[in-house]
């Protein structure tokens, strides 16, 4: 991106040209990929023209002014349809920008369009979208991952240079891993959630996807920092783009949790991740076996909490103020019909589950119990960070699976096995490619950092990226 910025600065390329390039690429690849729900050609070109005028006047808004991005379609964009991949919101156009959108606009980034996702971000494959499945650019028979599948695929297929996604249990990192791009889930509270449509507010974070670690960091630097409109972001520091220093790896204590390398982990994935770990060790890092024993419960805990919170967050979709309404003779029937028709299976399933675990007679046994196990998981992670600087794991147990392969919802939920822990404990985590398997499918490596430890995570990721780039980490 620095090169692109330089080209823009030296007028060798215009924002309009870049945006046109994106639109052409989209036109070319979309019929197969289906990464976008809405492409805003007109709006993007208008924003690009404005960026070019600013450049011509010598007043760019930022070094990145004019470099376009794509935004996951559960992040509100004023005047641009935001569907959450739901039939219920298929005609909903927000009247306000999410804080992250406001911030990227303030830096001059044109928005090319809104990317596909699992409906309301509930899923790990972008198959549960009312707007069709997003295909993996590496193999269109396979899923792009999810729920930020559109944002990951669009970046991987070079439809856009970078994108925004949301991550509640792995929704940025898992598709980033499947599509072979870099994806960051920031520490809880580091980025404003205002305007991002909630799935589970105690877990949700907006994050960045890009092809390079540095680009993910640059985009993150544009959106990070406290927002007075999101109470839980109070006290969050901003994020300056790091000065890269691969020597941070020397003496770095890298935690390797045994629980993340146990049964269920695909052999090729394990091999690639271990090779990357060995590379870090070769550069002077100290690999430390650690234990996160409660990770065993992460998925069940996650599932209980996320369904509970989601059942409440999605209750507002009642057909009174916005959204698709199915008329009925009385209000309650109108609610039930509108919701019944507006939501897909997975959404209804999770609302049912969430309603169950919150209902008076099950609250204590399920919801409250899960909150307490969450405390144990947090304590495990906190304990680990007293001994190590970062934790490195595979991002997912396998590479991208085939479309339609996972029919059982519980099986699908296991995709988040290695990622949910970071959300439950509020720390930051990043996935970056560390190789490909025998079928040429990307393998993701996850670097988990302490709360607000994004700088170190990016430094380590940068070092890994360099070593992978030198060919020592990849089979192909």
């Amino acid at each position: 991106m620095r090169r692109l910025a330089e080209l823009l600065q030296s007028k060798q390329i215009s924002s309009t040209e870049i945006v046109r390039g994106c639109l052409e690429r989209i036109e070319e690849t979309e019929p197969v990929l289906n990464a976008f729900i809405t492409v805003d050609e007109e709006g993007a070109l208008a924003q690009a023209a404005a960026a070019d005028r600013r450049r011509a006047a010598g007043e760019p808004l930022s070094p990145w002014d004019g470099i376009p991005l794509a935004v996951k379609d559960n992040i509100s964009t004023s005047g641009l349809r935001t569907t959450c991949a739901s039939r219920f919101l298929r005609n909903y156009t927000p009247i306000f920008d999410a804080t992250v959108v406001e911030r990227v606009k303030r830096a001059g980034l044109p928005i090319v369009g809104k990317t596909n996702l699992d409906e309301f971000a509930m899923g790990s494959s972008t198959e549960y979208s009312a707007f069709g499945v997003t295909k993996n650019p590496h193999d269109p028979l396979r899923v792009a991952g999810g729920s930020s599948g559109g944002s990951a695929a669009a970046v991987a297929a070079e439809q856009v240079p970078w994108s925004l996604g949301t991550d509640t249990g792995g929704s940025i990192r898992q598709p980033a891993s499947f599509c072979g791009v870099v994806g960051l889930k920031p520490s809880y509270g580091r980025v404003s959630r205002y305007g991002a449509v909630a799935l589970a507010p105690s877990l949700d974070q907006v994050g960045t996807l890009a092809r390079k670690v540095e680009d993910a960091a640059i985009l993150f630097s544009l959106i990070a920092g406290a927002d007075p409109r999101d109470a839980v972001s109070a006290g969050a520091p901003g994020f300056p783009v790091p000065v890269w220093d691969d020597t941070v790896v020397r003496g770095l204590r890298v935690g390797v949790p045994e629980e993340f390398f146990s049964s269920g982990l695909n052999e090729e994935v394990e091999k690639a991740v271990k090779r990357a770990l060995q590379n870090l060790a070769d550069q002077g890092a100290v690999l430390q076996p650690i234990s996160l024993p409660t990770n065993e419960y992460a998925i069940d805990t996650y599932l209980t909490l996320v369904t509970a919170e989601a059942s409440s967050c999605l209750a507002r979709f009642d057909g009174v103020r916005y959204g698709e309404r199915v008329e009925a003779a009385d209000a309650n029937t109108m609610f039930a019909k509108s919701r019944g028709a507006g939501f897909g299976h997975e959404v209804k399933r999770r609302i049912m589950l969430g309603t169950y675990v919150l209902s008076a007679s099950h609250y204590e046994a399920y919801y409250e119990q899960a909150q307490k196990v969450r405390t144990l998981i947090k304590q495990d992670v906190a304990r680990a960070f007293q001994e190590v600087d970062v934790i490195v794991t595979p991002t997912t147990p396998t590479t991208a699976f085939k479309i339609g392969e996972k029919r059982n919802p519980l099986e699908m939920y296991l995709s988040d096995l290695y990622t949910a822990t970071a959300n439950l404990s509020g720390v930051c985590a990043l996935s970056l490619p560390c190789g490909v398997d025998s079928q040429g499918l990307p393998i993701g490596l996850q670097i988990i950092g302490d709360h607000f430890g994004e700088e170190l995570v990016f430094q380590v990721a940068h070092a890994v990226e360099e070593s992978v780039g030198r060919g020592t980490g990849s089979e192909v």
Partner: protein
Amino acid sequence: MKYDIVIGLEIHVALLTESKFLCSCATAFGAPPNTQCCPVCLGLPGALPLVNEQAVEYAVRAGLALNCEINHFSRFDRKNYFYPDLPKAYQITQDVFPICTNGYLEYYIDDVLRRTTITRLHLEEEAGKLVHSSGSIVDSEYSLVDYNRAGIPLIEIVTAPDITSPRQARLFLEQLRLLMLYMGVSDTKMEEGSLRCDANISLKPAGSTVLGTKVEIKNLNSFRALERALEYEAARQSRVLEQGGEIKQESRTWDERSGRTLSMRSKGDAPDYRIFPEPDLPPLRLEPDWVFRIRETLPERPLERLHRLEESYGLSRYESTFLVNYADFCQVFLELAEEGEDNTDLANLLMGDYARLAREQGHLEPQRLAGLLQILQEGLITHNQGKAVLEELFKSPLSAREIVKEKGWEVLKDPAQLKGVVQQVLTANSELVERYRGGEEKLWGFFVGQVMRTVQGKADPQMVNELLKGELTQKS
């Protein structure tokens, strides 16, 4: 059998903040529908709540005034239920950890000081307003929703079931209203819904310690409604029990027109609000210093003022109660009492004709009232004339003294002149004088009246009496 009545109240008080509880929309009453709304109070997807500091301060002030413990840690919860006036389909409230607990309110029943325990006081948000097509929810084909009111801060105050009569319930509520008014936390206008009350009532055999089944009465929007509804309900329950029936635990609504409580249709299961901690808002932590400052600057409470008026100004309970109930009159009183006016005269003036006129036309400048008191004290006019001067003060810009002068209302003070009038009257009625002297004493009043008529009421009645006495006895 005789029964004891057991009553507990739940009172909602709308706080007098400028902006709403969780967003910055105005709270003003009476704006056109849906003009005081924003993404937050409309529950638009992605919008997030932010707590109004003033609302917290008002809740603490109210809690301190009610002798509550102020909890330095309190938490917000979501109460989930669907209703067209509830934009998010959950209400943000405080369920498990309320901001204030365990207080009491003291008030007089006749001359006995009583105390009612306040179990808890918590913050929550108001819902929107419904307008029903036919005027009543029962038979309306459709309803209209206005969200201007949605999100106004409320405190809910819950009493222990230690109220034992409908009248006591009313007296309690009157005192509570006054307290909220004195604390400046609410305008307490019941007609605008800023003070609302639900009542729980049950009966138990006299002296028994076992509580009976309670019934909740809603829609009590005046003091009179509260007392009447409770009286009706006590009688109804007593009748049911006498006939060997059972009281059904239910919600009933007060129907003003028929003067009865009516069972509210209950269909399906009991409500299940699926309450859980609000993830969008961090818990509320109050600095002890901050609470201390509020405590130190707490306004005078009505009961304190009552005792002060009695003790420091020598007023009767009746006079003090009047002044406490009408703080504006009290202010006039205190200001003039400060200037050394006779307290009882002053109180009587305020409670008499002045009260009627001031309520119709607003208060006079206290100084103008002081002028009236002064000429009354000087004996410049009679008390009867005082009323006329008072009426004039409300119409004319002139001072009391100027009015008297202009109207020529000064009392005849020259005894010689008045004596002449008296003699004239007696001469003109010599026959009656004879009869009086003959023992017909009731004629005295006639003579007084004749003298007063001759001088157009401008004589000091005492002087007239003395002169008449002198004339009538002298010559006998």
